[in-house]
Each structure stands twice: as C-alpha cells, then as structure tokens.
C-alpha cells in the first residue's frame, strides 16, 4: 500500500516536473525565426511522428482508467531512463552493478547451463525455475506464431485465451512486474533492444532528416508488428507515456524523458551516479546539433526509454528474485517490494536530510501529490473521448488538450470540482470562453496544391543558437494560456480600486498578540471602494487592454469647455472634423482656415466701436454715443427697418 502511495506521489511529482520544464524545450525547438525552413520541417516531422505514435494506444487508454495505479509502479522502478532503479539494488545497496548488461549476462549464463547441479540452494532453485519458465514462454510464443500461420482461427482463440488470462491477472492485481504478461513482455523487450541498437547506429550515421523519419517509421512498424502478435498486451508504461503525449502540447513533450531523468537524478543522486551523468551529458549533447536531429533524437530517446522501462520492469524482477524468494510465491514478492520501497524511502529521506536544502521541497511536494493525482485519474476517460472527437480537427486538438492532464491547474480543477475555490467559477467561465474560442479557430485543411514544400535548408549558426538560448531563458513559463489568464487576472486586480480598512485593533475591545478585531468591527470600518466602470476587455478573453490613463496625451487635450457649450460632446462635435490640408482638399482646407480677421496693408484700422460689436442703444455705454451722434443712430434704425421690410 505504501509502495503504491509512494509510486503515485512520485508519478505526480515527475509529471509536475515535466509540466514545469516542458516549455524550455518547446521554445528551444520552436524558436527558429531566421532559419525558417528547418523549423517548419521540424514541426511537420514531429507532428507526423507524434500523430503516428498516438494512433493505436488512445482507445486502450479510454478503456482502462484505474490502471494508472499500476502504471505508476513502472515509473517508480524505471524513473525516466529506466536504468537506474532495480529492485536488487534497493535490497542490496552494496552490490551496485545493476545495469542492464549485468543482468543480461547473468541471464545468459543461466541459459547456457543445460543441466543443473543438485542439491540447489534456495536462490538457485528460484533461478532455475525462472529459466525454465522463460524457455516455456518462448516455446509458447513460437508455437503461437506457427499456429497463426497454419490456423488463424485457432490462433485467435488462443489469443483470446491469453487475453482472458491477462484480464484475470489484472483483476487479481498480482501481475505487478511478475505476472505472466509482464514476463512475456520481457521476451519482447529483447527484440526491441536489438532494434534499438540498430536504430542508434543508423542515427549516428544519418544526419538527413528524411532518412531519420524513415527510421522512426520503421521502428514504429516494428512495434506495430509486435503488437499484432499480442494485440492488447501493450505495456502499461507505453500507454502511460503515450497518453501524456496525447494530452499536453506535443512540442513540450519532447523533453519528457530528459525531465524525468532529471527528476530521477534529484530523487536518488548517489545511487547511480555514473550512468546518469552519462545520460545527462548525452541529452545535452543532443540539444546541441541541428534542430531536426535533436527533435528526432528526442523522439527516439523517448521511445527507447519507454521500451527500457517496460523491459527493465521485467528484467529487474528476475534479478531481484534471484536473491530473495521463491518465484511462485507472489505474496512474498509483494511484501518484498513494500520492504524495498520502505528501504528506499528511508534511504532517500536520509539523503535528503544530509544533502542541501534544495531537495527538501521535494519531500514536501510528495505529500500533496496523491491528492492531486485523483482528479487526474478521474479525468482520463473523458479526456480521451474529447481527443477522439477532436481528432479530425488536426493538430489544434493537441494544444487544446494540453492543459487537461494538469492537476495543478485551477481552472480545470474547478471544472471538475466547482466547489474547490471561491473564485473558481469566474475563472472557469473565462477559460471555457477562451478554449471555445480557440476551438472555433481550428481551421480547414490548408490548400497545398499551389504550395510547394520548401526544400532548401539553412544551417543554423551560432547566432541562432544564442537566440534559442535567450528565449529559453526568458520564457520559463510553461503554459501560454494559463500564463495569460493569470496575467490578466493580475491586471484586473491591479486596476480595481482598493478597499480602505480603518480598523484599529484594540480600540474598544481587548487587543494583543493573536487577537484579531472582530468581524463586525472590521465590517464597520471597511470602506468599500466604489466599483469602477466595466473594463473594456471584460468580454474579451484573449485581450488585456491597459486601462491606465495616458497622461501625456491628456496634457494635449482640452480640459475646459469653451463658453457656449454645456456638455463635452457638443464641443467634441465641433472639433472633430480635421481642418488640416492632409485630410482635406485644397479648397476645403482654405475655406476652413480662413482667418476671421484679414488685414490689408496701407489701410487704417479704426478703433472698435460699440456698434461694430453689435451693442445697441439698450446698453448704457451707448447712450453717450447716441447723445453725441443722434443722427447716425437714426440712419441705422432706418436701415434696419428697410431691411426688415424687404424681407
């Protein structure tokens, strides 16, 4: 039980780590801007590879939702690269040589021996049984192959039997690492190992992309072939990681294995220092070469590690059982496993205590992980459904679903369990809006007919690598949408007017350390800020509009209403037509800009008189004028009268 728990937590942890670290590589691979060619091709290739990877395993995932408990088991034992944790090591820390090669050697040695000397001690008996069983399994496999060729119907029946056996196994939950199915896979793993070696050689030889892709497809075919033999007997590990590949952004996933590796190094830094260092350097080395190569390498490594995991989970078991107990007694084994986990746990805790503080958060993080695992597990079937539904929509769906497996993501969590947080619904709405929006954007397949595929490639020089590095460093955030929503939330919060709390603790009541002012008091002295006007981007999920006032522009604006206007819109109406020559024809411009006063040189400008301005006899100042010059006024009046009569 504790083992399972630990495994769960580790799985969750490793997943978390993956999530955190993903964007690095995502950006790393994606950030070409000048060598466009390479990038595009990389993307395309990668997408193809990923989609081909997906194909078969998705549906199976949908069928098994509870199996992930077991899946975590594999993760523990292999933890990324697969070569690190072996049961035997845990039991016998003295004997450090736990790499695959030694195990294989042992196995081979055992195999080569036809006869067994008696009397055997307990371990030898066990080993003997092991070998016998292996031989049987091999034989059975061969027979099955033949049967398939000769009589397909019978083969099918046989297959069904196998399947039934497997189901029984699964129901009994005794199959962990030692079940029939697991052992049968061990045999398969051997084939895969060879294939892997071949692949590596080819990789080293070829640097051209097309060849590499072929290799990839070949390897897939190989796997496909094996799957034909045992259709449904796919290792859980494979499923597990494939599922991840479905879920999160495929770009980000390339780093999956390396990240888990890193996690592993963090987990047990002293157990297997050498191979790990080797691998880390390897992965670093892989990052260096041209991007296409890098991507493919990653891809291969992922596959390889998958295989290794499944393989190792098999291989580790005989090694472990050699020294421990009878092969048939499953209970003992499980007990031993628990013991091993405990041992490992102790070991780790000791190490973590001894080592620097950097590892302490991990211990803490291991605790909440199982709880976080829960929603993730619940989500699975649903997610796969959506994936299947969205399959036609193209690669977008990969992006769309990348958040789903994230246990830490509040929005998603709230979708499943709305009561979790007080502010969850709002955010959820936002998120849904956003995702809907993005879903709507998924587009038709592009027209390729006139668009020839670009052929020329550019070698990336150092500069571009630098860029890459820069971007990688600059954008450590993992998820675009989540980050954006977070940013938006922060912006909204920042722009909101703040409440003023005038509560004085200890005033009118007891005060002191640990005493808080009463809620009633706080309520009373809290001055709530008035709600501002609604934000412009309230209904725009993908936009943050800065609501801050632009004071530099405001300095140029009119801030006092001129006389006859009583409301600002009136004045705005009169100034909204531009009068410059840029916006108007020459005639219109001249007309609009005619000065009110035009002077002509050589003419006398008389001082202004009251009449000129329009004042009549009514005004008092005019009285004097009238008295002084009554005649003129009368003529004016006459004129006016005349005019009105004409009208």
């Amino acid at each position, binding site marked *: 039980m504790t083992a399972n728990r630990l495994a769960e937590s580790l799985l969750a942890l490793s997943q978390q780590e993956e999530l955190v670290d993903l964007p690095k590589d995502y950006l790393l691979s*994606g950030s070409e*801007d*000048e060598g*466009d060619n390479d990038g*595009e091709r990389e*993307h395309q290739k990668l997408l193809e590879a990923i989609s081909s990877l997906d194909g078969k395993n998705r549906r199976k995932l949908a069928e098994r939702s509870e199996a992930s408990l077991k899946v975590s088991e594999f993760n523990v034992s292999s933890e990324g690269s697969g070569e690190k944790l072996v049961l035997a090591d845990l039991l016998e820390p003295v004997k450090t040589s736990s790499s695959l090669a030694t195990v294989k050697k042992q196995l081979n040695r055992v195999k080569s021996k036809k006869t067994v000397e008696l009397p055997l001690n307990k371990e030898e008996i066990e080993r003997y049984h092991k070998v016998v069983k292996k031989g049987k399994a091999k034989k059975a496999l061969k027979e099955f192959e033949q049967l398939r060729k000769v009589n397909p119907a019978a083969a099918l029946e046989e297959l069904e039997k196998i399947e039934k056996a497997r189901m029984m196994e699964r129901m009994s939950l005794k199959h962990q690492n030692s079940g029939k199915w697991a052992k049968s896979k061990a045999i398969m793993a051997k084939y895969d190992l060879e294939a892997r070696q071949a692949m590596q050689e080819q990789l080293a030889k070829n640097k051209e992309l097309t060849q590499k892709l072929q290799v990839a497809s070949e390897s897939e075919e190989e796997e496909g072939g094996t799957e034909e033999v045992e259709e449904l007997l796919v290792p859980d590990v494979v499923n597990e990681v494939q599922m991840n590949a479905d879920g999160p*952004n495929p*770009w980000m996933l390339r780093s999956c294995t390396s990240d888990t590796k890193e996690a592993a190094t963090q987990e047990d830094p002293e157990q297997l220092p050498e191979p790990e260092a080797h691998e880390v350097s390897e992965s670093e080395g892989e990052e260096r070469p041209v991007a296409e190569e890098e991507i493919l390498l990653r891809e291969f490594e992922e596959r390889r590690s998958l295989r290794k995991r499944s393989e190792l989970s098999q291989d580790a078991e005989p090694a472990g059982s050699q020294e421990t107990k009878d092969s048939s007694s499953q209970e003992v084994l499980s007990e031993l496993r628990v013991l091993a986990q405990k041992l490992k746990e102790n070991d780790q805790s000791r190490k973590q205590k001894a080592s620097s503080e950097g590892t302490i958060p991990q211990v803490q993080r291991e605790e909440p992980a199982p709880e976080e695992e829960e929603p993730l597990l619940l989500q699975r079937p649903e997610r796969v459904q959506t994936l299947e539904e969205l399959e036609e929509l*193209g*690669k*977008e769906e990969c*992006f769309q679903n990348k958040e789903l497996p994230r246990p830490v993501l509040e929005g998603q969590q709230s979708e499943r369990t709305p009561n979790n947080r007080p502010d969850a619904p709002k955010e959820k709405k936002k998120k849904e809006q956003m995702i809907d*929006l993005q879903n709507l954007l998924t587009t038709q397949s*592009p*027209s390729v007919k006139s*668009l*020839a*595929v*670009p*052929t020329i490639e550019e070698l990336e020089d150092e500069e571009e690598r630098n*860029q890459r590095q*820069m*971007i990688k460093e*600059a*954008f450590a955030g993992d998820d*675009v*949408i989540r980050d*954006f929503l977070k*940013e938006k939330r922060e912006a909204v919060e920042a722009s909101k007017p703040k409440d003023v709390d005038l509560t004085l603790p200890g005033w009118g009541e007891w005060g002191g350390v640990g005493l808080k002012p009463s809620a009633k008091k706080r309520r009373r002295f809290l001055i709530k800020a008035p709600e501002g006007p609604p934000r*412009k981007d309230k209904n*725009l999920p*993908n*936009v*943050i509009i*800065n609501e*801050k006032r*632009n004071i530099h*522009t*405001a300095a*140029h*604006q009119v*801030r006092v209403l001129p006389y*006859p206007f*009583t*409301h*600002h819109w*009136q004045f*705005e*109406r*009169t*100034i*909204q*037509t531009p009068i410059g020559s*840029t*916006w108007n*024809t020459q*005639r*219109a411009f001249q007309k609009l800009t005619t000065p009110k006063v035009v002077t002509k040189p050589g003419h006398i400008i008389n001082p202004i008189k009251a009449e000129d301005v329009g004042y009549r006899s009514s005004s008092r100042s005019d009285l004097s004028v009238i008295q002084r010059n009554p005649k003129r006024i009368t003529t004016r009046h006459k004129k006016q009268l005349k*005019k009105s009569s004409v*009208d």
Partner: protein
Amino acid sequence: VGEMETAPKSGRDVPPKKDKLQTKRRKPRRYWEEETVPTRDGASAGPPCNKKNRELRPQRRKNAHILKKSRISKKPQVPKKPREWKNPESQRSLSGVNPGPGSSPLPRSKAKTRSRLEVAEAEEEETSIKAARSELLLAEEPGFLEGEDGEDTAKICQADIVEAVDIASAAKHFDLNLRQFGPYRLNYSRTGRHLAFGGRRGHVAALDWVTKKLMCEINVMEAVRDIRFLHSEALLAVAQNRWLHIYDNQGIELHCIRRCDRVTRLEFLPFHFLLATASETGFLTYLDVSVGKIVAALNARAGRLDVMSQNPYNAVIHLGHSNGTVSLWSPAMKEPLAKILCHRGGVRAVAVDSTGTYMATSGLDHQLKIFDLRGTYQPLSTRTLPHGAGHLAFSQRGLLVAGMGDVVNIWAGQGKASPPSLEQPYLTHRLSGPVHGLQFCPFEDVLGVGHSGGITSMLVPGAGEPNFDGLESNPYRSRKQRQEWEVKALLEKVPAELICLDPRALAKVDVISLEQGKKERIERLGYDPEAKAPFQPKPKQKGRSSTASLVKRKRKVMDEEHRDKVRQSLQQQQQRHKEVKAKSTGARPSALDRFVR
C-alpha cells in the same frame, strides 16, 4: 434673400458673438470695404447660405457611404465616425432636449450652442462633398489579375504575368542573385522609388530600383539584422550586430547609436520622425531622428524581441512574443496599451494593414490569423499553413503576403476595406532561397522579397495604391521638392506622446480633468455656479403674496418640472420600445419566439 432672413432679424436677444457666426457663414466683411456696402457678394464667392445647406442635406445622406478622403493612406488617416450616431445627437440638441447634466440656464447660450453645432455640421458636410468630388481626379485604377473562366490565379506564374504586361511594368520584375552575403532584409522608401537591402553577412546597398541606379553599396563587415530608410531616401538606418548605424545615400556612416544595441528589428514612424528599435535585450527604444534624442526606452519584459511591426493608422508598435502574445506599444506608456493572445506557440510574424483595421499574425503553431483591431481584437479568420509563415506583410490595398520557407503566398480580399480571404491564394511564387524579408512597394504593383539567394522583385497586380499624393510622397520628386517636403514634414511633426490606440483622442475633451475641475470649483466657491437656481416666486400685491399662495405657486412650478421629466422619460421609453419592435419585426416572427426567453 435667404441671407436676409438670418441676418439682423433676431434683434436684441442676439448675443454679441452672433455676428461673428454670420460673418463666418458669409464672406467676412473687410475693414477696408465701405461699411455701407452690403455684406453679401452673391454666390460667386461661394458662401453657402442656409438654404443651400438644407438642400444638400439629403444629398449628403446619399453620399455618406461613398464619401472618402481624397488623400489616401498618407497620414494616419482619420476616418469619420459613423454618421448614424452623430445625427441623433445633433438632432437632440436641435430639438432643445439637452441630455447633459449641466444644462445651461440661459436659452441664449443654448441657441448659440445649437448654431455652433449647425455650423460644424455644415462645414463637415461641405468638406466631405468636396473630398468626394475631388475623387474624380484620381485617374489611375488599380491593377488586377483574373483567371480565364475559373482558372486559379495562384497557378499563374511570374513569367506569364511578365509576358502579359507592358514593357515598363515587365522591367519591374527582376532577380538580384546575391548568394554570397546571405539572407537579405529589404526596405522600400516611402515614395516607393528607392530600395535598400542588407545581407546578413554585411552587404548593404541602396538603389533607385526603377532605373536600377545604384546609390551606394558597402559592406559593413558586421552582421546586418535589419535595414530601414528614415523619412527620406537620403538616410538609412542599419541594425548591425552590435549597434545601430545610420548611413547616408552615399554609404557614409553618419551616426553610430550605441544606446540602441543588439537591435533586431527596425520600424520608422514617418509622421513622428521616430525610429523604433526592438532589441535582443528586450527593449523597445524610440529614437527621434529629427533631434537625435531617445524618446523612450521601454522594457517589454518578454525576452528577446524580434517580431515587430507598426500600425500605420495610429503609429502603435506591435511586438510579437514567444509566449504567443502580441503587445501594442506607445512611447507615452511604460506598459503595453494592449496585449492580445494570438497563438499557442510563439508569434513569428506580425503585420498590420494600412487602415489599421486588420492585423495578421503567424505563430509557431503554424496558424495564420487575421485579427480585427477595432476594439475587439478577435480573430476574423484563421488558417493552418503546412509550414507556418515566417514573414508577413500587407500591401497598400490590403493584400497579404506570407513567406513560408522559400515560397511566398499572397492572399487578396474582396475589396479594399475587406480583410484578405485566406481561402484561396491569389498568387504563389517560389524563390531560390528561404524568405528573410518581405515588403510591398508603395504605389507599385510590386512585392520585394529578400531571401538567401538575393532579392526578388515580383509583380503582384493590384497590390499598390495607383494614385499618389504629389505633395506627400511623390515618387518622381526632384531633389528640391524633396527638400521642400522635408521641411514641411518636420514642421508638421507629431509629438511622440500623442501616439495612442485611438488617434482621434486629441479631438476629445479630457473628461476626467473637466469633471475634476468642476468639482474643485464647486468646492472652492461653496456652491454650484452652473446649477439651476431654485424658483423664487415674485412678490405680488393685493394680498396675492400670502404665504399660502407663494407655496402654491412654488409647488406649481415644481410639479410642472416634475411632469416634464416624467414626460421625457416616457418618451424615451416609447422610443426604445419602438426600436425594439422594429428590430424584432426585422426578423420573421416565429411561433417558437415565445420560448426564447
């Protein structure tokens, strides 16, 4: 006679400034003219009298849609606001119902406001009519490309086009094979006459590309990231490996601007004389090239900047970031004016069309999206490209080009104001190397493509604006004319701090300060000087001024006011109701409508 109506009849309650208005409407009376001379001088001088205006009004309605400014896309064009919302307001003001809170106590000023508004409306109308009329003078028509009965225009290759067009146009299609100095960035001058290009490996050249006369050719012995003409073809800004350098058209280095270091992209804002530089260090720096001062250095806080474009409508700079957002910047603000999440991968290219309505973005998710920039920032159309576009550019007439590897695709819209439809490419062309720079030549149907194999100038019918403004950007201008224009442009330089999302903000009142000022004034005075004085009944004689009757009269006035208010609100309600009805009758009523709510 029509003038006589308006002239002096208003008699004594005409406020003193009324005369001024009249003088504005008719030809102003000059002081050197005899006072007795009647102020009108007939229709020959072209003073539109009121009557004429009334006649024109319906006509304006008709013209409302075709009215356009004659000078197209030269300056940040200020589009007129839709008439639809203007009219009701003006009518409201005309009918005397003032919705504003500070309605004036004096009927006189009300009338005055009304007349001012009328004048403004008339002016606007007149100018728009004139603008419409002057469109006749735009003789040139845009080019086009049509396939023979259903033929896909994208299949028409450059050779065919060159064969079909006249010799002068055919000469505009050429290839410069410059394989030695790496991928090229290029830039056309604002008149479209000159072309500058810079190769990654230091090759910088400028030429009059129409006559193919080389102005200068140098090797700066340093990596060249970007190249751009400043306000005229006489100055060149080159973003080199380390710093920003400015050369003249002889290739002489004039400045080395060390405050702009590690620049990756350049943009020049012609009306502000600002050179915007985006740097590897994550800074967006605005350099005023008229005075040589750095106006603003903004930290985008988003890592390396290498995707930049300007909005020609409002001079806002758009930066694309690797977290999938596009941020909009002005030198007046330290933070982005807006941030738009465009892609799920990083943004690779951004382009904004000449009217500032549409923005095209392409991202690492291989998508090409067109966004509406008019407030909503929502994608209008999206398309997945097999390899994603690394470079984007809009032409003057709204064609969109995308460079994908060594292929360029061009999409065209339905009309000038419509976004390019991404359904079918309008043209396609394959180059001898991956694209590194794209720009449509202004006023020409030419697209310049910089790639690793050199420069390609390809013909794209219908790309350029066929009519140029001789005063603004004249491709055929002489040196003297250029100098003249330069002075004028400098005099008309727009201050950098006026850059904001809505370039019309300057024509708006700063309401916040206005309200603040009002409030402070009220506080200072202790009362609201603009508030309506409460009704005070006049004292009357013969016992009618008893307290009771005073109260009664007061009550009467109060009730009257209240009734007015109620009436008004009722009217408004009715109107709203009518509108709703009109809307609902627009769609065919269905039996299921009752379930809608």
